[in-house]
């Protein structure tokens, strides 16, 4: 028996409304990058121009912030990659006492508001007289990035048939060979996806960073200054658009890497 199970008109309206609410504001960013108006946020823009791209290109402060952000994101996601994979491997390999606590410990830095992680780290750094630097930013970022890698890795470990690891041992491979020839090839895409997401997360992070950064500016910190005290609106518009475009790439990449694997299985 079939029921009339098509989505109702109310549902469709709610879905379309919700999706527009999610997407229109971001699209607006793309429009504003081209506006000729440089003193206010006038809508509709009085005219369109490409000149702000050139202006932004020649701004050393933007380049420095971008460079720091990329550096921090790269190092943090690498650390998170190692820590997250180790955790996922341990948790999925055996049922040991305190397994749930490990999961909780990994999730906690992201389940608690970022400001808590931020102020905790700041007060600890202060207490032990650790000077604020790139290193302190990375310490903070790596901590909350672990969970992203962990989630991706553990999902893949779960789908990985446990017997192929046993098969490898059975065929004469020791633990290290099994890791290299069987585990790594089978979880590589999940790790790459996790790493990319961690990169995006770190690249965009501002809350923890405001607490753990010294004088240096990451790109989000630079933007935050602009948001609080707008000085160069057109440059901010362009930077915002670039940031959106740059973070989309790892997200799409991670999606492609995990989705393709699902389809093949």
């Amino acid at each position, binding site marked *: 028996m079939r029921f009339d*199970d098509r*989505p*109702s008109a109310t*549902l*469709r309206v*709610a*879905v379309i409304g*919700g999706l527009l609410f*999610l*997407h229109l*504001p*971001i699209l607006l*960013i793309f429009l*504003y990058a081209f506006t000729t108006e440089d003193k*206010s946020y006038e*809508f*509709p823009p009085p005219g369109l121009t490409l000149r702000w791209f050139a202006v932004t290109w020649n701004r050393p402060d933007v380049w420095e912030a971008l460079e720091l952000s990329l550096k921090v994101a790269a190092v943090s996601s690498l650390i998170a990659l*190692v*820590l*997250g994979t*180790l*955790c996922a491997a*341990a948790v999925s390999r055996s049922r040991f006492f305190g397994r749930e606590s*490990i999961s909780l*410990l990994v999730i*906690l830095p992201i*389940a*608690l*508001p970022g*400001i*808590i*992680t931020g*102020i*905790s*780290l*700041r*007060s*600890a750094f202060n207490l032990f007289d650790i000077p604020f630097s790139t290193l302190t930013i990375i*310490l903070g970022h790596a*901590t909350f990035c*672990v969970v992203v890698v962990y989630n991706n890795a553990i999902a893949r470990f779960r789908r990985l048939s446990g017997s192929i690891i046993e098969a490898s041992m059975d065929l*004469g*491979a*020791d*633990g*290290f060979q099994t890791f290299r020839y069987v585990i790594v090839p089978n979880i590589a895409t999940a790790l790459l996806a996790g790493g990319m997401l961690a990169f995006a*997360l770190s690249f*965009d992070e*501002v*809350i923890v960073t*405001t607490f753990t950064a010294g004088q240096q500016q990451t790109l*989000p910190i630079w*933007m935050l200054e602009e*948001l609080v005290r707008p000085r160069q609106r057109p440059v901010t518009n362009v930077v*915002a658009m670039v940031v*959106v475009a740059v*973070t989309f790439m790892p*997200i*799409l990449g991670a*999606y492609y890497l995990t989705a393709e694997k699902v389809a093949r299985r």
Partner: protein
Amino acid sequence: MTAVAAVNSKTHGIWGRISDLMWRKPGLLVATLLSLPILWLGIIYLGSLFTLLLQSFYSIDEFSGMIRREFTLKTYGELLSPANFDIILRTFLMACAVTISAAFIAFPIAYYAARYARGRLKALFYLAVMLPLWSSYLVKIYAWKLILAKEGIVNWLVSELGLSFLLNALLSVPVIGGNSLSVSYVGTYLVLLYVWLPFMILPVQAALERVPTNLIEASRDLGGTQRQTLRIVIIPLAMPGIIAGSIFTFSLTLGDFIVPQIIGTSRRFIGQAVYAHQGTAGNIPLAAAFAVVPIVIMTIYLWVAKRQGALDAL
């Protein structure tokens, strides 16, 4: 059979021996794998949390402005002063409002994605939620600054449609209103809702995906209307997902100090109070005590969620 499985030359030596040891002592393997992450998270993260907690039991000397390092509950007492308690209440109410609204907006999207979207459309839905979730937090706030500005798109649209009186009526409501949207609670609420909404959609959708279609068909078969089926079968089964999503929206709203700073009134939220006390005011103990509030609220929340079985849906 003459050739007995040849001795594996490659697995001799130190690595082979370590591998053998790990087999003999599986606990050692787990311990080795976990040692690095535990050290990192344990020392850097838990250690920091602990120092924060510790500092909340210190107090500040009113005359010298120095931190007095002895145990006291005085700082927690300060939280209850009318001004500070207002901050906590305001933040809590805002988190409730954002979470409830997010659940209402998220449910239809998640429901449609889980029940009706297939193949390509499904992938599209997934990306339609993932992209806003992952796009830059600051850029999202910035976009709303553009939208809510006096000369921005909302005012433009409202005046084009000749609806200015409606907007003015909204802004003249005491408490939630203000001079313009970008300096009102309505503005803060809209932006917080926007920024954290995707975190609600994903877990709800995941929970709805797990509702077996035949349960829905059984309900319809037994004479339930679409509406009854939704209320009696689907929503209760999706509840763990909604709770899981609410953990994010609630927690993230509780701790946010950037949104209310950029779009909103001059009245503070918890995050701003923490930021201000640790920064310019130099009152680390009070900042720490303020920071403990969301921890306590979230601990209670997580405990309730765990009892509801919602943590598996994270």
